[in-house]
Structures are given as structure tokens and as C-alpha cells.
């Protein structure tokens, strides 16, 4: 079963990124750590989406094992609690953050976006090993879940 293994690996990955020294600035340690952790979390999402997207876009050949593993990772990462990531005082007015202030004024809406990703990645993980057509069908909603939250809660990249 890839899931337990990947959960451990994922957690280990997160912890190692989190322990990277935090930049000096006006942030408290908790604020800087929250930002680092959530950005690493996003990086893990993008990393695991990579092979799935490349298959869905016909850029690499479909491989059931690779697809199933990446999709299980994605679902595992999406399921990690984000309670301590979105620390007050770390919106995009802070250097290095692209988190819109709306996250803190509309926490319910933001959490609904998280839940949508949990659902979409679970649906993808359930079928990603069942062939390219199944993967393609379940891939779209995952991309939409990422995109919808980035549309509403993330400022443009510079």
C-alpha cells in the first residue's frame, strides 16, 4: 500500500523543509513557520500533480503504478490539517506571502475550497490506476479545485 508509506515520507518532507532557518524580518517564529509549511505543502501538491498532469495532457505515457502513487500522495497531502498554516498577520502585505487578506475575513469560504480539493483528490486516487481515460476524467476537477482557490485567495505572482 503506498498510502502509509507516502504519508510518512510526506510528513518527513514537510518537517525537513520546515526546519530550514526562517528569514529574519518582522515575523514571529510561528508566523514564518506557518508560511514555510503552507508553501511547502503547496509545493508537494504541485510536485505530485506533475506526472498526473503530464499523462492527462498526453505528454508522457500512462503508467498505472506511477499514476496511482502520485494520486495517493496528492490525496494524502490534501488531507493534512492546515489549522496552523494560516497564521494571522501573514497575508500578502508580508514579504514572501501571496495569501490574500480575504482568507482571514472569509475563513468559511477558504475552508470550503480546501474541502473541495480533499474530495477531488480522493476521487482521483480511487481511479488513477484504472487507465488513462479514468485518470483524465477525474483529473479535471482536481485542477479546478486548485485553480478556484488560487483565483479567490492568492495574489498574482510577480
Amino acid at each position, binding site marked *: 500500500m503506498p498510502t502509509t508509506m507516502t504519508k510518512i515520507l510526506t510528513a518527513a518532507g514537510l518537517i525537513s523543509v520546515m526546519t530550514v532557518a526562517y528569514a529574519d524580518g518582522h515575523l514571529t517564529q510561528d508566523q514564518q513557520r506557518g508560511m514555510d509549511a503552507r508553501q511547502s505543502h503547496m509545493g508537494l501538491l504541485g510536485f505530485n500533480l506533475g506526472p498526473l498532469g503530464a499523462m492527462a*495532457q498526453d505528454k508522457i505515457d500512462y503508467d498505472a503504478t506511477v499514476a496511482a502513487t502520485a494520486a495517493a500522495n496528492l490525496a494524502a497531502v490534501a488531507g493534512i490539517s492546515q489549522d496552523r498554516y494560516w497564521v494571522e498577520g501573514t497575508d500578502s502585505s508580508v514579504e514572501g506571502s501571496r495569501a*490574500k487578506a480575504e482568507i482571514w475575513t472569509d475563513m468559511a469560504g477558504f475552508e470550503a475550497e480546501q474541502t473541495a480539493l480533499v474530495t477531488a483528490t480522493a476521487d482521483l486516487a480511487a481511479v488513477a490506476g484504472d487507465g488513462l481515460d479514468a485518470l483524465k476524467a477525474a483529473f479535471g476537477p482536481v*485542477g479546478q479545485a486548485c*485553480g478556484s482557490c488560487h*483565483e479567490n485567495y492568492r*495574489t*498574482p*505572482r*510577480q
Partner: protein
Amino acid sequence: MKLLGRSAVLGLIVVAAGWYLTRPQPLSPDVFNGITADSENGAIIFAAAGCASCHNADDQPPELLSGGRRFASPFGTFIAPNISSDPTHGVGNWPDVALASAIMVGVGRDGEHLFPAFPYTSYNKADVQDVADLIAYLRTLPASDQPSQPHEVGFPFNLRVTLGPWKALFEGDDWALQDAATPEIARGRYLVEALGHCTECHTSRNALGGVDRSRWLAGAENPSGDGRIPNITPAALTWSASEISEYLKSGFTPEFDTAGGEMAAVVRNTSKLTDGDRDAIAAYLKAIPAIANETP
């Protein structure tokens, strides 16, 4: 004293002449002579031109053009009007030529200048056939009886007559990329410069609110106040043409991040274009001059 009075009168005459010379001039009534409109192509033009991103309301289907979206600018806040097919609150009973005059030369129903928050300074380069097709398509869309709201723009910018000289300054119909080396780049130029209004967001503006052509697509302040809109000239956008094309189709970057912010709505439009048209936009973005980011 007398002298002063005289020069004031002279000044008024000059201003009045300027306003007269730059008075709103709608299109000639025979622009559409001999043209048969094709609403299917109109649907593609509608997507390429992004009419819905400004004229539909949040949480409404893109086809319901009830207006109400707000556009902040240094001059005040503009509110997109209802352009649905409703005869009273929308544009259902505007003749074709009146609609074309609004879209291509920024002249409203009552012969007034329209504010350039409506990107007619791009659309003036559109083919008349495409505009006819677009209008035919608009007429197939549902009606909304939501009244248009007045703009929240203060004096003197609320004086539409001052837009005449502004238009004379900025409403050029020449291309920013003068030489299109291939037919594909020329098609991309048409989609970006005439229809796409990409430049409305990606190009910075001068003090008068005109697009700064010397920094074409090199990034700009975000009018909503959220960060900066990225530079998409080859100096900053290093993706391959096929990666750019994929982004415009699915919203995925080469790193499998997704398009966010205002660009997400743009991708919903570009996803409706053909692969060929997206490739053309990508070829165009590869062909424009590389302009480095401004160092603040």
C-alpha cells in the same frame, strides 16, 4: 485686465474647438452592408474578447450579461453596465450599428463618449465581419432586467466630453508589434492586440491612463491593489510556446501550479479557443520585444 479677459475667451474657444474636433463620431450606418453574420463564429469572438469577464455578475453563468462588476482605477470606480438582450435595461433594442459604434469607437447610444475602462481602444482593430458575428451572438444570449448602475467617478473625470481629446491621444489603430514575421504571429497579434485586451492588465499606464506602449506587456500594477500583474514579454516569460499554449488551455503552468487571480477568468475564455488560436497567441508572445522588469 482687458488682455486677460481676451486670452480667457481665446482659451475657451481653443477648448471648445478641441471638444468639437474630438466630438463622438459613431460608425457610418453602412458598415455592415453586404455582410452576413455568423453567430457561431461570434461565440468564439465573444470568448476571445472576454466580454463576459467584465459584463457578467459574480456567481452567474457567463452568458448572463447583467453587469455590476466594479473596476477600480486612479480616476474612480467604473461599474460595468447591463449589456444583455433586455430591451429596457440591456442593449436588446440597440441597432447593430449602435452596438458596433460602442464596441469599435467607444460611442454610446446617445452619442456620448464611453469611458476607456471598456477596451474599445483594442477592439477598434477588430474585423468588421467578426464584430457583426459577435453582435449576432450577443442577441442570442438571455435578458437580465437588472438596471445598470452609475459609475463612481469624480470631477473632472466624470465629464465624458473630456474623453474626446483623450481618445485622440490614445486611440491609435496601429499595431504595437509592427512586423508580424509569419501568418501565425499575425493571427496571434490580432487575437492579443485587437480582441484579447491582454494589454489592459499586462501593460502599465501613463499618468493620463493611456497604455504605455514602450512597456508593451511588460507587467503592471494590479488596479485591484493585489500585487503586480506579471511581465509576459520574453524577458520574463521563459516558457516554451507549447507551454504557454497549454497554460491558456488548462491554466497549468509547466510546474503544475495553476493560473490564479484575474487570470483564471481569462483562461476560462482562452480555453474556448481552438488549439491553433492558442498556438498563435503563444507565437506572438514569443515574438514581442523582451522588456526587463522595472526596477523599483
